[in-house]
């Protein structure tokens, strides 16, 4: 449908919906109104359902939810937002719901908009290498779809469990297994369809001008109004994501070291080659053989000779760093680790059972490489102070920064342990900011710390943008709020 016709159609829906309402201020049955939009099967106010949506798998305390709604179409999303805007009901859009920092657990109640019914892979353009997907498409389903229908292409898959959504990962500025080569998932966004809190449906990127979704520019960069905003500016219903060549051969090469201070140099040298697919750093205090710094480099290639060459080059580079004394190649990698490193997605969630407690949360810092040693030491100190065994998985994002995870496993059945994890997270967040790092997907408390430290003019700009886009403040309120 051409842009003008689309606009007309959306305006008709807005007008029809608004005019259908009776006297303003009259009692409105929210539940019945929502049922009238999506059908009764996809609205719930049952305590059992809202209980699950009022908490996530991290250590954040639960917060009440009034309604869960599962829209099936963009028109339904539009009508829900129009209704919520009219009645000033908070709306929190939810993808996989697995940020672990409770970003999509409402802070002020209202509606959780679970997008998982909108799970169509609308188009894969092989030649222009992009996929147009709905907001509820899971990482796993896109990966499986590409493997089956477009085996030469891949998208960047995060370490998160496979049921999480692609769009969610992009909107929280997440990263995936090809981030070191191609950038953050949010950098891979070509365009979006979004529903504004006031009901308008907009297309961003080339789809605003053409019927194709192959590029984000060159027009004003509007996707940025929805990336990193945690759903406070609107609901993304479709997203065009860049796809990349999928090499046939993959291998992992692991280096180990005990020199924390050498980490920045090692990362710099290993990323200087620009040949790696993925790159992460791990350690674990127990068992003893894991208590080292492991540099895990994933290499991929289209030809066996190419892969062999890359392996050889990385082995040679290791010999040059610190005259060959800083890192050494790990020979005879344990088969379980070998699999874990090469699996896409890896089963990283098992970390939640390290202490047989079902709980895991991490405070994620986006750091420049020079800040890693200080954070490495501090993370261990915080873990020990709270009686925990330290463990890390950090992913090098591009050749410019690293996602440094302060990881804390906890026992969900032990309130004191949960409180300790929260305290550890808070201490980590404060240290990140003190160290000139940035907190990634920060919880409500972390956001308060960030906003407090933020340049007041920037905070004012955020506030102005939010006000302009969401005049009644219905979208995931409580996030990115300027402290008074």
């Amino acid at each position: 449908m051409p842009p003008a016709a689309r606009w007309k159609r959306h305006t008709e829906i807005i007008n029809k919906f608004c005019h259908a309402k009776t006297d303003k201020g009259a009692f409105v049955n929210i539940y019945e109104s929502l049922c009238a939009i999506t059908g009764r099967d996809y609205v719930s106010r049952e305590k059992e359902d809202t209980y699950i949506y009022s908490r996530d798998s991290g250590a954040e305390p639960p917060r009440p939810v009034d309604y869960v709604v599962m829209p099936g179409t963009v028109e339904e999303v539009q009508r829900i937002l129009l209704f919520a805007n009219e009645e000033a009901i908070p709306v929190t859009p939810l993808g996989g719901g697995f940020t672990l920092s409770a970003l999509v657990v409402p802070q002020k109640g209202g509606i959780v908009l679970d997008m998982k019914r909108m799970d169509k892979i609308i188009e894969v353009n092989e030649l222009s290498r992009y996929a147009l997907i709905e907001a509820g498409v899971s990482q796993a389903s896109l990966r499986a779809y590409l493997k089956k229908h477009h085996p030469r292409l891949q998208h960047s898959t995060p370490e998160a469990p496979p049921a999480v959504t692609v769009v969610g990962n992009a909107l929280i500025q997440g990263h995936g297994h090809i981030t070191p080569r191609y950038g953050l998932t949010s950098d891979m966004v070509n365009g979006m369809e979004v529903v504004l809190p006031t009901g308008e449906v907009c297309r961003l990127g080339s789809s605003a001008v053409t019927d194709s979704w192959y590029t984000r520019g060159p027009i004003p960069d509007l996707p940025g109004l929805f990336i990193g905003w945690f759903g406070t500016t609107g609901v993304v219903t479709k997203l065009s994501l860049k796809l990349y060549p999928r090499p046939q051969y993959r291998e992992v090469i692991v280096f180990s070291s005990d020199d924390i201070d050498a980490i920045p140099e090692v990362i710099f040298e290993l990323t200087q080659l620009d040949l790696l697919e993925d790159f992460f750093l791990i350690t674990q205090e127990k068992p003893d053989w894991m208590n080292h710094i492991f540099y895990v480099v994933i290499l991929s290639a289209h030809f066996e000779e190419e892969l062999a060459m890359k392996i050889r080059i990385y082995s040679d580079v290791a010999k040059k760093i610190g005259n060959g004394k800083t890192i050494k190649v790990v020979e005879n990698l344990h088969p379980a680790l070998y699999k874990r490193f090469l699996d896409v997605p890896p089963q990283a969630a098992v970390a939640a059972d390290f202490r047989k407690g079902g709980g895991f949360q991490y405070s994620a810092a986006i750091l420049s490489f020079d800040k890693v040693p200080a954070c490495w030491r501090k993370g261990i100190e915080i873990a020990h102070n709270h009686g925990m065994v330290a463990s890390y998985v950090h992913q090098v994002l591009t050749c410019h920064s690293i996602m440094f995870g302060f990881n804390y496993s906890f026992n969900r059945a032990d309130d004191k342990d949960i409180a300790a994890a929260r305290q550890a997270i808070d201490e980590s967040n404060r240290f990140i900011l003190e160290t000139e790092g940035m907190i990634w997907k920060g919880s409500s408390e972390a956001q308060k710390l960030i906003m407090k430290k933020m340049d007041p003019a920037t905070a004012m700009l955020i506030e102005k943008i939010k006000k302009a886009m969401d005049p009644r403040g219905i979208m995931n309120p409580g996030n990115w709020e300027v402290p008074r």
Partner: protein
Amino acid sequence: MKYEDIIHRCFRCGFCKLTDDYEEFNCPPHKKYRLESFSPGGRMWLIRARIKGDVQISERYQQILYSCTLCANCVTHCIFPFKEDLVNIFTAARESLVEEGTLPPAVRDYLKSIQTYGNPYKEPSAKRGDWANGLSVPAYDGQEYLLYIGCVGSYDERARKIARSVALLLKTLNISFGILGAEEICDGNEVRALGETWLFEGLAQRNIEYFKTRNIKKIITLDPHAYNAFTLEYKTLGADLEVYHYTQILAEKTAALADRLKTDPLEVTYHDPCYLGRHNNLYDEPRKILAALPGVKFAEMVANRGNALCCGGGGGNFFSDILGGGKESPARIRVAQAKETGAGIISIACPQCAKMLEDAVKAEDLEDKLAVKDIAELVLSRLETK
């Protein structure tokens, strides 16, 4: 409640909802309702919330617990060490509802029928053997095997036809077997699945005693649900039985019929019943039978073996229908998956799956394109009459 010491360990990461390649959501209630509360993780967290007193028993809580088909997809795909106990945890949560007397009406009625009539159909025991009328199937009298039919095969019209086919085939293959007819007692698999442990143990003990009295050592079951109860549960109660599902017997014998089987082309797919497949790891035998049928081209569904989607009848839902029908019901999705193979026949090896899928074929308006046949019916239909 049992398993209280591990239930908090669920991280709700969601691997349990998926297939091996993570391509499809494969948990029947979650697939239908899509709400996280209907996923295995959601159920785990709610059971724990109930233990802690954060949620109370309600109609919704009952619906969430009893719409689970105990299909064990979660057991197969969970990544945590406690995965083997997931179905046991869900069953234990149902047990606690039974203990408190707070059951959904459909479950209560089912259990009451078993207690009163010995079967869920409220039919007299005397009619239990009527399925065999006119077949000259011998009563059990020391033959090598007991052919155990179960409630569904004994009373349900569709399932009776399957029971007859199995009996006829066993006769054709000269297997030494007999049936109990009116003396057969419900195996209790669904009773246990619905959480009535006390009643289940009573039924199991009666069966075990009866089998001992009659010196029954080897049993062939028609129904994978009975096979499950006899192999996994009765053994823990002291039974000493050699139990086979009829497909295990046929798998060894079908080749002997080779020169009597039709050879005209036929395309067939196969639906793995959960109580044969995921619960008891019997995946190859039905496929071996199909492979032994000349002219039959086997078309595997994408979701097969451990990834097969449950028909929606497991965990007592065949009787309680708490999961319910509708376009997003697992049976209708499964039928659509079967249609994708291009096969004209969905073969099954379970009378409950047969009924569920046959209803779904009708609901999907595919009756002229897709037939549901039990493997025994299929083999029988391929036998040349002499």
